[in-house]
Protein backbone atom coordinates (compact mmCIF):
# COMPACT_ATOMS: atom_id res chain seq x y z
CA UNK A 1 0.00 0.00 0.00
CA UNK A 2 1.26 3.46 -0.78
CA UNK A 3 1.32 5.95 2.02
CA UNK A 4 -1.08 8.65 0.84
CA UNK A 5 0.93 11.36 2.56
CA UNK A 6 4.46 10.53 1.56
CA UNK A 7 3.82 10.02 -2.10
CA UNK A 8 1.40 12.92 -2.31
CA UNK A 9 2.28 14.47 -5.64
CA UNK A 10 2.67 18.20 -5.36
CA UNK A 11 2.75 20.72 -8.14
CA UNK A 12 3.69 24.01 -6.47
CA UNK A 13 5.48 27.08 -7.81
CA UNK A 14 8.71 26.28 -6.03
CA UNK A 15 8.48 22.51 -5.94
CA UNK A 16 7.13 19.63 -7.97
CA UNK A 17 7.28 16.07 -6.67
CA UNK A 18 6.23 13.86 -3.78
CA UNK A 19 5.63 15.26 -0.31
CA UNK A 20 8.35 13.25 1.42
CA UNK A 21 10.95 14.53 -1.01
CA UNK A 22 9.77 18.04 -0.21
CA UNK A 23 10.28 17.37 3.50
CA UNK A 24 13.68 15.89 2.87
CA UNK A 25 14.82 18.89 0.90
CA UNK A 26 13.45 21.29 3.51
CA UNK A 27 15.15 19.51 6.39
CA UNK A 28 18.40 19.27 4.47
CA UNK A 29 18.04 23.00 3.92
CA UNK A 30 18.22 22.63 0.18
CA UNK A 31 14.86 24.34 -0.16
CA UNK A 32 13.69 27.45 1.65
CA UNK A 33 10.39 26.87 3.51
CA UNK A 34 9.57 30.46 2.69
CA UNK A 35 9.19 29.47 -0.96
CA UNK A 36 6.53 26.84 -0.31
CA UNK A 37 2.82 27.43 -0.91
CA UNK A 38 1.08 25.86 2.09
CA UNK A 39 -2.48 26.20 0.77
CA UNK A 40 -1.43 24.27 -2.33
CA UNK A 41 -0.27 21.35 -0.19
CA UNK A 42 -3.46 21.23 1.88
CA UNK A 43 -5.74 21.44 -1.15
CA UNK A 44 -3.77 18.75 -2.97
CA UNK A 45 -3.97 16.48 0.07
CA UNK A 46 -7.72 16.99 0.42
CA UNK A 47 -8.16 16.30 -3.27
CA UNK A 48 -6.14 13.11 -2.95
CA UNK A 49 -8.24 11.99 0.03
CA UNK A 50 -11.37 12.45 -2.04
CA UNK A 51 -10.04 10.30 -4.84
CA UNK A 52 -9.80 7.43 -2.35
CA UNK A 53 -13.23 6.34 -1.31
CA UNK A 54 -12.55 5.87 2.39
CA UNK A 55 -11.47 8.36 4.99
CA UNK A 56 -7.96 7.32 5.96
CA UNK A 57 -7.60 8.53 9.55
CA UNK A 58 -3.99 7.41 9.81
CA UNK A 59 -3.08 9.36 6.74
CA UNK A 60 -4.90 12.44 8.06
CA UNK A 61 -3.14 12.20 11.40
CA UNK A 62 0.22 11.75 9.77
CA UNK A 63 -0.46 14.65 7.45
CA UNK A 64 -1.46 16.92 10.33
CA UNK A 65 1.76 16.18 12.21
CA UNK A 66 4.03 16.64 9.22
CA UNK A 67 2.16 19.67 7.99
CA UNK A 68 2.20 21.44 11.34
CA UNK A 69 5.94 20.86 11.51
CA UNK A 70 6.24 22.38 8.08
CA UNK A 71 4.13 25.36 9.10
CA UNK A 72 6.32 25.95 12.11
CA UNK A 73 9.46 25.79 9.99
CA UNK A 74 8.03 28.29 7.59
CA UNK A 75 6.71 30.59 10.29
CA UNK A 76 10.12 30.69 11.93
CA UNK A 77 11.76 31.56 8.67
CA UNK A 78 9.32 34.34 7.93
CA UNK A 79 8.87 36.02 11.27
CA UNK A 80 12.20 35.62 13.00
CA UNK A 81 11.98 38.91 14.82
CA UNK A 82 8.20 39.20 14.86
CA UNK A 83 7.46 36.13 16.88
CA UNK A 84 8.60 38.06 19.92
CA UNK A 85 6.01 40.76 19.21
CA UNK A 86 3.27 38.17 18.88
CA UNK A 87 4.41 36.47 22.07
CA UNK A 88 3.69 39.60 24.01
CA UNK A 89 0.13 39.76 22.70
CA UNK A 90 -2.94 38.20 24.24
CA UNK A 91 -4.18 35.25 22.16
CA UNK A 92 -7.08 37.32 20.76
CA UNK A 93 -4.75 40.16 19.81
CA UNK A 94 -2.31 37.76 18.19
CA UNK A 95 -5.14 36.21 16.18
CA UNK A 96 -6.27 39.69 15.18
CA UNK A 97 -2.76 40.60 14.07
CA UNK A 98 -2.41 37.42 12.03
CA UNK A 99 -5.82 38.00 10.43
CA UNK A 100 -4.75 41.54 9.55
CA UNK A 101 -1.60 40.25 7.86
CA UNK A 102 -3.52 37.59 5.96
CA UNK A 103 -6.02 40.21 4.76
CA UNK A 104 -3.16 42.44 3.62
CA UNK A 105 -1.59 39.59 1.68
CA UNK A 106 -4.92 38.72 0.10
CA UNK A 107 -5.32 42.34 -1.06
CA UNK A 108 -1.80 42.28 -2.53
CA UNK A 109 -2.57 39.07 -4.40
CA UNK A 110 -5.67 40.77 -5.80
CA UNK A 111 -3.58 43.76 -6.81
CA UNK A 112 -1.19 41.39 -8.59
CA UNK A 113 -4.12 39.85 -10.45
CA UNK A 114 -5.29 43.30 -11.48
CA UNK A 115 -1.78 44.15 -12.72
CA UNK A 116 -1.60 40.89 -14.71
CA UNK A 117 -4.92 41.68 -16.41
CA UNK A 118 -3.78 45.22 -17.06
CA UNK A 119 -0.61 43.93 -18.69
CA UNK A 120 -2.65 41.67 -20.95
CA UNK A 121 -4.90 44.53 -22.02
CA UNK A 122 -1.90 46.78 -22.73
CA UNK A 123 -0.13 44.23 -24.88
CA UNK A 124 -0.77 46.28 -28.02
CA UNK A 125 0.74 49.47 -26.56
CA UNK A 126 4.30 49.87 -27.86
CA UNK A 127 6.63 52.70 -26.89
CA UNK A 128 10.34 53.41 -27.13
CA UNK A 129 12.62 52.23 -24.36
CA UNK A 130 15.76 54.29 -24.02
CA UNK A 131 16.95 57.42 -25.77
CA UNK A 132 15.72 58.58 -29.17
CA UNK A 133 18.05 57.69 -32.08
CA UNK A 134 18.93 61.28 -32.97
CA UNK A 135 18.59 62.92 -29.55
CA UNK A 136 21.32 65.09 -28.07
CA UNK A 137 23.39 63.55 -25.26
CA UNK A 138 22.46 64.37 -21.69
CA UNK A 139 25.10 66.18 -19.70
CA UNK A 140 24.69 65.54 -16.00
CA UNK A 141 26.43 67.90 -13.67
CA UNK A 142 27.00 67.29 -10.02
CA UNK A 143 27.51 70.04 -7.48
CA UNK A 144 30.59 70.07 -5.27
CA UNK A 145 30.35 67.19 -2.71
CA UNK A 146 31.66 66.79 0.81
CA UNK A 147 34.10 63.85 1.03
CA UNK A 148 32.91 63.19 4.59
CA UNK A 149 29.77 61.69 3.00
CA UNK A 150 31.90 58.91 1.53
CA UNK A 151 33.27 57.95 4.94
CA UNK A 152 29.78 58.05 6.47
CA UNK A 153 28.40 55.80 3.73
CA UNK A 154 31.17 53.25 4.17
CA UNK A 155 30.92 53.29 7.96
CA UNK A 156 27.19 52.56 7.71
CA UNK A 157 28.01 49.49 5.60
CA UNK A 158 30.34 48.26 8.34
CA UNK A 159 27.55 48.25 10.94
CA UNK A 160 26.25 44.81 11.81
CA UNK A 161 22.53 44.54 11.11
CA UNK A 162 20.30 44.17 14.17
CA UNK A 163 20.77 40.59 15.34
CA UNK A 164 17.83 38.25 14.92
CA UNK A 165 16.54 36.83 18.17
CA UNK A 166 16.45 33.04 18.25
CA UNK A 167 15.26 32.87 21.84
CA UNK A 168 11.81 31.68 20.80
CA UNK A 169 13.24 28.75 18.88
CA UNK A 170 12.76 26.08 21.52
CA UNK A 171 13.07 23.33 18.92
CA UNK A 172 16.23 22.87 16.95
CA UNK A 173 16.50 20.46 14.05
CA UNK A 174 19.47 18.16 13.72
CA UNK A 175 20.40 17.82 10.04
CA UNK A 176 19.17 14.74 8.18
CA UNK A 177 22.76 14.00 7.23
CA UNK A 178 23.62 13.42 10.90
CA UNK A 179 21.13 10.52 11.08
CA UNK A 180 22.18 9.24 7.65
CA UNK A 181 25.76 8.91 8.95
CA UNK A 182 24.63 7.42 12.23
CA UNK A 183 22.51 4.71 10.53
CA UNK A 184 25.29 3.93 8.06
CA UNK A 185 27.72 3.44 10.93
CA UNK A 186 25.20 1.22 12.75
CA UNK A 187 24.76 -0.99 9.70
CA UNK A 188 28.52 -1.20 9.42
CA UNK A 189 28.58 -2.82 12.83
CA UNK A 190 25.28 -4.74 12.76
CA UNK A 191 23.31 -6.43 10.00
CA UNK A 192 20.04 -4.85 11.11
CA UNK A 193 18.53 -2.71 13.84
CA UNK A 194 15.16 -1.56 15.16
CA UNK A 195 14.38 1.99 14.18
CA UNK A 196 12.14 2.53 17.19
CA UNK A 197 14.81 1.40 19.62
CA UNK A 198 17.40 3.65 18.01
CA UNK A 199 15.24 6.79 18.19
CA UNK A 200 13.71 6.10 21.60
CA UNK A 201 14.23 9.08 23.84
CA UNK A 202 14.54 11.57 20.99
CA UNK A 203 12.05 14.40 20.55
CA UNK A 204 9.18 13.96 18.10
CA UNK A 205 10.80 16.31 15.62
CA UNK A 206 14.14 14.50 15.89
CA UNK A 207 12.33 11.23 15.28
CA UNK A 208 10.73 12.74 12.19
CA UNK A 209 14.14 13.83 10.93
CA UNK A 210 15.55 10.37 11.65
CA UNK A 211 12.67 8.88 9.67
CA UNK A 212 13.49 11.15 6.74
CA UNK A 213 17.08 9.90 6.93
CA UNK A 214 15.70 6.38 6.57
CA UNK A 215 13.73 7.41 3.50
CA UNK A 216 16.83 9.00 2.08
CA UNK A 217 18.91 5.82 2.58
CA UNK A 218 16.08 3.73 1.16
CA UNK A 219 15.90 6.00 -1.88
CA UNK A 220 19.57 5.52 -2.73
CA UNK A 221 19.14 1.76 -2.20
CA UNK A 222 21.46 1.40 0.80
CA UNK A 223 18.92 -0.13 3.15
CA UNK A 224 15.82 -2.31 3.19
CA UNK A 225 12.92 -1.60 5.52
CA UNK A 226 10.37 -3.98 6.86
CA UNK A 227 7.61 -3.88 9.42
CA UNK A 228 5.64 -6.88 10.64
CA UNK A 229 2.40 -4.95 11.13
CA UNK A 230 1.22 -1.36 11.34
CA UNK A 231 2.75 0.25 14.44
CA UNK A 232 5.13 -2.69 14.84
CA UNK A 233 8.82 -1.77 15.08
CA UNK A 234 10.43 -0.78 11.81
CA UNK A 235 13.37 -3.09 11.07
CA UNK A 236 16.26 -1.66 9.12
CA UNK A 237 18.72 -3.91 7.30
CA UNK A 238 21.46 -3.69 4.70
CA UNK A 239 19.96 -3.73 1.22
CA UNK A 240 22.54 -6.30 0.04
CA UNK A 241 21.54 -8.75 2.80
CA UNK A 242 17.87 -8.35 2.09
CA UNK A 243 18.31 -9.75 -1.41
CA UNK A 244 19.54 -13.10 -0.08
CA UNK A 245 17.83 -13.64 3.26
CA UNK A 246 14.33 -12.62 2.26
CA UNK A 247 13.29 -13.22 5.83
CA UNK A 248 10.13 -11.27 6.16
CA UNK A 249 8.11 -12.17 3.11
CA UNK A 250 5.81 -14.18 5.30
CA UNK A 251 2.23 -14.59 4.20
CA UNK A 252 1.11 -14.15 7.80
CA UNK A 253 2.62 -10.73 8.32
CA UNK A 254 1.16 -7.90 6.38
CA UNK A 255 4.40 -6.35 5.47
CA UNK A 256 4.51 -2.63 5.27
CA UNK A 257 7.27 -1.43 3.07
CA UNK A 258 8.05 2.16 2.72
CA UNK A 259 7.29 2.88 -0.84
CA UNK A 260 8.53 5.81 -2.75
CA UNK A 261 7.61 7.36 -6.00
CA UNK A 262 10.94 8.71 -6.99
Amino acid at each position, binding site marked *: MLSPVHDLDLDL*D*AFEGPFDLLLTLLLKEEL*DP*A*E*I*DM*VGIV*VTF*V*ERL*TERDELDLDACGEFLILFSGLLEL*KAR*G*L*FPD*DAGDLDELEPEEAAEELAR*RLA*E*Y*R*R*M*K*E*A*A*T*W*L*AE*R*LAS*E*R*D*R*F*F*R*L*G*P*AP*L*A*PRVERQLAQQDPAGLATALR*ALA*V*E*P*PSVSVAHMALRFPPVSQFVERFRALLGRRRRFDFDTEVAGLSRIEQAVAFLALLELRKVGEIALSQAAPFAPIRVGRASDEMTTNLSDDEETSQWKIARSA
Partner: protein
Amino acid sequence: MEDRTLRLIATNPVDALARTVEALLVVASAPLSVDELAEAAADDVERIETALGLLSDRYREGRSGIVLEQVAGGYAYRASREAAEACARLFERPVERGLSQAALETVAIVAYLGPVSRPEIARVRGVAADSAVASLVERGLIAEAGRESGPGGAVRYRVTALFERVFGLENLGALPRLDDLGDDTEAIRERLHAVAEARAS
Protein backbone atom coordinates in the same frame (compact mmCIF):
# COMPACT_ATOMS: atom_id res chain seq x y z
CA MET B 1 -9.92 91.78 -42.71
CA GLU B 2 -8.75 93.17 -39.40
CA ASP B 3 -10.45 90.28 -37.65
CA ARG B 4 -8.50 87.74 -39.72
CA THR B 5 -5.16 89.36 -38.99
CA LEU B 6 -5.87 89.37 -35.30
CA ARG B 7 -6.71 85.74 -35.33
CA LEU B 8 -3.52 84.85 -37.19
CA ILE B 9 -1.46 86.67 -34.59
CA ALA B 10 -3.31 84.98 -31.77
CA THR B 11 -3.19 81.43 -33.10
CA ASN B 12 0.17 81.20 -34.79
CA PRO B 13 2.27 81.42 -31.65
CA VAL B 14 0.46 78.44 -30.13
CA ASP B 15 1.04 76.56 -33.38
CA ALA B 16 4.75 77.32 -33.12
CA LEU B 17 4.69 76.29 -29.47
CA ALA B 18 2.90 73.07 -30.43
CA ARG B 19 5.71 72.33 -32.89
CA THR B 20 8.25 72.90 -30.13
CA VAL B 21 6.37 70.56 -27.78
CA GLU B 22 6.09 68.05 -30.62
CA ALA B 23 9.88 68.19 -31.02
CA LEU B 24 10.60 67.88 -27.28
CA LEU B 25 8.42 64.80 -27.01
CA VAL B 26 10.11 63.04 -29.92
CA VAL B 27 13.60 63.33 -28.42
CA ALA B 28 12.67 62.75 -24.77
CA SER B 29 13.51 59.33 -23.34
CA ALA B 30 10.73 59.37 -20.73
CA PRO B 31 7.32 61.07 -20.41
CA LEU B 32 7.59 64.83 -19.89
CA SER B 33 5.41 66.67 -17.37
CA VAL B 34 3.71 69.95 -18.22
CA ASP B 35 6.22 71.71 -15.97
CA GLU B 36 9.20 70.15 -17.71
CA LEU B 37 7.75 71.09 -21.09
CA ALA B 38 7.08 74.65 -19.91
CA GLU B 39 10.64 75.01 -18.64
CA ALA B 40 12.26 73.63 -21.78
CA ALA B 41 10.00 75.63 -24.11
CA ALA B 42 10.42 78.73 -21.92
CA ASP B 43 6.69 79.32 -22.03
CA ASP B 44 3.88 79.25 -19.51
CA VAL B 45 1.93 76.22 -18.30
CA GLU B 46 -1.45 77.33 -19.64
CA ARG B 47 -0.12 77.74 -23.17
CA ILE B 48 1.69 74.39 -22.95
CA GLU B 49 -1.62 72.81 -22.01
CA THR B 50 -3.31 74.44 -24.99
CA ALA B 51 -0.54 73.13 -27.25
CA LEU B 52 -0.90 69.64 -25.76
CA GLY B 53 -4.63 69.82 -26.47
CA LEU B 54 -3.89 70.55 -30.14
CA LEU B 55 -1.37 67.70 -30.31
CA SER B 56 -3.64 65.22 -28.53
CA ASP B 57 -6.18 65.79 -31.28
CA ARG B 58 -3.62 65.37 -34.04
CA TYR B 59 -1.87 62.34 -32.55
CA ARG B 60 -4.71 60.03 -31.65
CA GLU B 61 -5.80 56.49 -32.44
CA GLY B 62 -7.23 56.07 -35.93
CA ARG B 63 -5.82 59.34 -37.12
CA SER B 64 -2.10 58.83 -36.75
CA GLY B 65 0.45 56.06 -36.22
CA ILE B 66 1.96 58.20 -33.45
CA VAL B 67 -0.35 58.56 -30.45
CA LEU B 68 0.15 61.14 -27.69
CA GLU B 69 -0.72 59.64 -24.32
CA GLN B 70 -0.86 60.93 -20.78
CA VAL B 71 1.12 58.46 -18.71
CA ALA B 72 3.53 58.22 -15.76
CA GLY B 73 2.90 61.78 -14.67
CA GLY B 74 3.54 63.30 -18.09
CA TYR B 75 3.04 63.12 -21.82
CA ALA B 76 4.72 60.75 -24.24
CA TYR B 77 4.34 59.31 -27.72
CA ARG B 78 3.61 55.69 -28.36
CA ALA B 79 2.69 53.62 -31.41
CA SER B 80 -1.00 53.34 -32.32
CA ARG B 81 -2.63 50.08 -31.29
CA GLU B 82 -3.42 49.54 -34.98
CA ALA B 83 0.33 49.11 -35.58
CA ALA B 84 0.84 46.66 -32.71
CA GLU B 85 1.29 43.65 -34.98
CA ALA B 86 4.00 45.37 -37.01
CA CYS B 87 5.70 46.58 -33.81
CA ALA B 88 5.63 43.08 -32.33
CA ARG B 89 7.53 41.80 -35.38
CA LEU B 90 10.34 44.28 -34.80
CA PHE B 91 10.52 44.97 -31.08
CA GLU B 92 11.01 42.78 -28.02
CA ARG B 93 9.09 43.30 -24.79
CA PRO B 94 12.01 42.85 -22.40
CA VAL B 95 10.34 44.62 -19.49
CA GLU B 96 7.18 42.63 -19.03
CA ARG B 97 7.86 39.35 -20.82
CA GLY B 98 7.74 36.34 -18.50
CA LEU B 99 6.92 38.28 -15.32
CA SER B 100 6.29 35.58 -12.70
CA GLN B 101 3.39 35.55 -10.25
CA ALA B 102 5.94 36.22 -7.50
CA ALA B 103 7.24 39.26 -9.38
CA LEU B 104 3.70 40.59 -9.94
CA GLU B 105 2.87 40.25 -6.24
CA THR B 106 6.13 41.91 -5.30
CA VAL B 107 5.68 44.84 -7.67
CA ALA B 108 2.10 45.25 -6.39
CA ILE B 109 3.41 45.50 -2.82
CA VAL B 110 6.05 48.02 -3.83
CA ALA B 111 3.50 50.06 -5.78
CA TYR B 112 0.95 50.20 -2.94
CA LEU B 113 3.19 50.22 0.14
CA GLY B 114 6.49 51.60 -1.22
CA PRO B 115 9.09 52.52 -0.36
CA VAL B 116 9.44 49.08 1.23
CA SER B 117 12.41 46.84 2.06
CA ARG B 118 12.87 43.20 1.12
CA PRO B 119 12.10 41.97 4.65
CA GLU B 120 8.86 43.97 4.62
CA ILE B 121 7.88 42.49 1.25
CA ALA B 122 8.63 38.98 2.55
CA ARG B 123 6.47 39.67 5.60
CA VAL B 124 3.47 40.61 3.47
CA ARG B 125 3.88 37.85 0.89
CA GLY B 126 4.71 35.11 3.36
CA VAL B 127 7.59 34.01 1.15
CA ALA B 128 11.04 35.39 0.50
CA ALA B 129 11.17 38.03 -2.21
CA ASP B 130 14.87 38.17 -3.07
CA SER B 131 14.80 36.78 -6.59
CA ALA B 132 11.57 38.61 -7.46
CA VAL B 133 13.11 41.90 -6.29
CA ALA B 134 16.29 41.26 -8.27
CA SER B 135 14.33 40.51 -11.43
CA LEU B 136 12.16 43.64 -11.03
CA VAL B 137 15.24 45.83 -10.49
CA GLU B 138 16.86 44.33 -13.57
CA ARG B 139 13.73 45.05 -15.62
CA GLY B 140 13.69 48.61 -14.33
CA LEU B 141 10.20 48.31 -12.81
CA ILE B 142 11.42 49.06 -9.28
CA ALA B 143 14.48 50.95 -8.05
CA GLU B 144 16.32 51.57 -4.82
CA ALA B 145 14.97 54.38 -2.68
CA GLY B 146 17.44 54.78 0.17
CA ARG B 147 17.75 52.58 3.26
CA GLU B 148 15.61 52.09 6.34
CA SER B 149 16.72 54.42 9.09
CA GLY B 150 19.03 53.13 11.77
CA PRO B 151 22.40 51.44 11.44
CA GLY B 152 22.52 48.47 9.11
CA GLY B 153 19.12 49.44 7.66
CA ALA B 154 17.79 47.41 4.71
CA VAL B 155 17.56 48.92 1.22
CA ARG B 156 14.07 50.14 0.34
CA TYR B 157 12.44 50.06 -3.10
CA ARG B 158 9.85 52.11 -5.00
CA VAL B 159 8.26 51.63 -8.40
CA THR B 160 9.73 53.56 -11.34
CA ALA B 161 8.18 55.74 -14.04
CA LEU B 162 8.76 52.78 -16.35
CA PHE B 163 6.39 50.74 -14.17
CA GLU B 164 3.65 53.34 -14.67
CA ARG B 165 4.42 53.45 -18.37
CA VAL B 166 4.39 49.68 -18.91
CA PHE B 167 1.10 49.31 -17.04
CA GLY B 168 -0.35 52.35 -18.79
CA LEU B 169 -1.01 54.30 -15.59
CA GLU B 170 -1.35 58.07 -15.60
CA ASN B 171 0.17 58.01 -12.12
CA LEU B 172 0.11 55.75 -9.04
CA GLY B 173 -3.26 57.24 -8.09
CA ALA B 174 -4.67 55.39 -11.11
CA LEU B 175 -4.13 52.05 -9.33
CA PRO B 176 -7.44 50.64 -8.13
CA ARG B 177 -8.32 51.08 -4.46
CA LEU B 178 -7.51 47.79 -2.78
CA ASP B 179 -11.04 47.45 -1.37
CA ASP B 180 -12.46 47.57 -4.89
CA LEU B 181 -10.59 44.52 -6.03
CA GLY B 182 -12.23 41.14 -6.50
CA ASP B 183 -11.76 38.21 -4.16
CA ASP B 184 -9.19 35.69 -5.31
CA THR B 185 -9.62 33.29 -2.41
CA GLU B 186 -12.67 32.37 -4.50
CA ALA B 187 -10.52 30.02 -6.60
CA ILE B 188 -9.35 28.05 -3.57
CA ARG B 189 -12.87 27.99 -2.17
CA GLU B 190 -14.14 26.58 -5.47
CA ARG B 191 -11.55 23.81 -5.45
CA LEU B 192 -12.56 22.86 -1.92
CA HIS B 193 -16.27 22.96 -2.83
CA ALA B 194 -15.57 20.65 -5.74
CA VAL B 195 -13.91 18.26 -3.33
CA ALA B 196 -16.89 18.41 -0.96
CA GLU B 197 -19.31 17.71 -3.79
CA ALA B 198 -17.23 14.80 -5.02
CA ARG B 199 -17.32 13.31 -1.53
CA ALA B 200 -21.07 13.79 -1.18
CA SER B 201 -21.88 12.10 -4.46
